[in-house]
């Protein structure tokens, strides 16, 4: 039972991070119908920028959490700018191109981002400076660190903020209108280009937050970390029903919990035949099952035929 709760908590932490990244995928997909393959690499850039800022400020005498917060701010700003530039350079011209063309440019952007990151940060794994408290608490027999609590709370706050933004503001209404039908939204006086750029910028900001969380929680960051993280987050977005914000959150949390529980129990369930190295298989297998029985994801609208 202790293992169960422990893995549940680990899954919740991982899932909150997946959910933040998945939101970026789902927002862009909802408006453009595009898989933004470079999104995972924006997470990576966010993590590495924050890490560098933290390293520079590590000896400044400021309190640790403050430094991490500054690092987070810088990372968010850098990633927002990056998201804006990427949309402008690589996607805007291709809005009416054949469906696969923007997918290929997205892959190209992802490769370029990784290589540029490698020029700046090298091929090595970087460890996050020990700025955050490492104290743990015990909840129902399971250990949870303060950092993990902070991650879950911060993710919840950010997601609540996003929901408010999308459902309660003018910008959010314009975003929903553009997702529904860009042409008509344009006729109603919505500046579609600005809205799409804003979507990328907001998604990238979420990615930066997630990147900082990953590197703070697991203690490392490197130039290739965005790839598998992006893959998992995209899986989460599809699991929840891509294009739906609530779906992305649900999918992210579910995927995190499934993975953590899978890693914890797969050995016992199969009598030791499969070990926790099959963790990733587990995640994809669940995804395939869900899609076979519910082809538009858990909370997706019925738009399987639209693509």
């Amino acid at each position: 039972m202790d293992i169960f709760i422990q893995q549940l908590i680990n899954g919740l932490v991982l899932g909150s991070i997946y959910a933040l990244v998945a939101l970026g995928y789902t927002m862009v997909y909802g408006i453009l119908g595009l898989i933004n393959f470079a999104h995972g690499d924006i997470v990576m850039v966010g993590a590495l920028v924050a890490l560098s800022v933290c390293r520079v400020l590590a000896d400044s005498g400021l309190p640790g959490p403050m430094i991490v917060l500054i690092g987070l701010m810088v990372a968010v700003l850098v990633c927002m700018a990056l998201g804006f530039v990427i949309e402008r350079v690589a996607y805007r011209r291709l809005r009416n191109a054949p469906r696969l063309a923007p997918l290929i440019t997205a892959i190209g952007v992802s490769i370029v981002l990784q290589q540029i990151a490698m020029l700046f940060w090298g091929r090595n794994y970087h460890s996050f400076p020990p700025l955050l408290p490492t104290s743990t608490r015990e909840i129902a027999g399971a250990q949870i660190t303060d950092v993990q609590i902070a991650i879950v709370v911060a993710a919840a706050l950010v997601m609540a903020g996003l929901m408010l933004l999308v459902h309660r503001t003018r910008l959010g209404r314009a975003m929903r209108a553009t997702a529904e039908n860009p042409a008509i939204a344009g006729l109603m006086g919505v500046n579609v280009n600005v809205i799409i750029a804003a979507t990328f910028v907001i998604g990238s900001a979420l990615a930066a937050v997630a990147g900082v969380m990953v590197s703070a929680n697991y203690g490392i960051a490197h130039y290739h970390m965005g790839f598998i993280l992006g893959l998992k987050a995209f899986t989460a977005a599809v699991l929840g029903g891509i294009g739906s914000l609530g779906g992305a959150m649900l999918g992210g949390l579910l995927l995190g919990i499934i993975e953590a529980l899978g890693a914890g129990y797969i050995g016992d369930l199969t009598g030791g035949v499969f070990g926790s190295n099959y963790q990733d298989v587990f995640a994809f297998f669940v995804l395939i099952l869900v899609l076979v029985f519910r082809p538009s994801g858990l909370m997706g609208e019925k738009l399987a035929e639209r693509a």
Partner: protein
Amino acid sequence: MRHKQSAWLATALIGIALAVLPFVVGLGIGNAWVRVLDFALLYVMLALGLNIVVGMAGLLDLGYIAFYAVGAYLYALLSSPQFGLHWPVWAVLPLGALVAGLFGAVLGAPTLRLRGDYLAIVTLGFGEIVRIFLNNLNSPINITNGPQGISQIDPVRIAGVPLSRPLEVFGHTLPAVYLYYYLFVLLALLIVFITVRLEDSRIGRAWVAIREDEIAAKACGINTRNIKLLAFAMGASFGGVAGGLFAGFQEFVSPESFSLMESIMVLCMVVLGGMGHIPGVILGALLLAVLPEALRYGAVPIQQALFGRVLLDPESLRMLLFGVALIAVMLYRPAGLWPEARRKREFLGARTK
């Protein structure tokens, strides 16, 4: 009559060109480049296989390399000391095509209802699952040797002659890479022939119809389920053959050759060359297989000449330029470098609207 004659002439010229190419390349810039050509031909086979699924039938497959892996591991298991089996090539390659085709159908069956990006992510997941299994099937029973991969695989033998050793022909010694080159050219031509014939067949037209509009295709009496499954199986079987050849050529396989990046690479070949257009796809495969290698060799001397020192290591420069090229080609030629004439017209029409 004249038309027929010029067609024969063109075929003969292409044949001669393909036959002397390794000598020109090998004597001109070195045998390492013939090896690059060999790999380029494997990529041509892969790209043509994927072109059936993505280009003709319009089903986005991001896990195609899994079938390459299936073919390669099948060859590796059936003719290496791993299980002490040494099956002949003529038995293993068709079996590889068959098993890979079966895997294709297995992947295709549950995904028939999915379209577009859902299909993409499921195929991607499938590709990763295959790779993870290959990586971990060394316990409890050792089948694939895990991350170490399988080595000492038998080379391809034709009529008892291993292609891995230089061969004396009329007083000339042909290095192994030349022998593999000829084998690969023949098989690539066979695959080109099959795809060209398929394209004009009832099945090929059904694939294109599904790509353009699945509901309309169904209304025209096409059994979309079977035809889609056939596309998956057919594309996969080409991948299986290429995989078997890869295993025999390398005499070594390991899971890291079959990463998602490879699937993406093959997809880029198809899309960059011009989806659904066979000459375009071949061009895409050759370009993406050869140019990065050229950069790998050329990057250091060129940088030294320009800046006096090496600023970027060749590997990252290669990837950087690859990424930039993908973006640039798609921005300026979104239908690919050499698109089908009809598709090109459609696209231009769509833009002037």
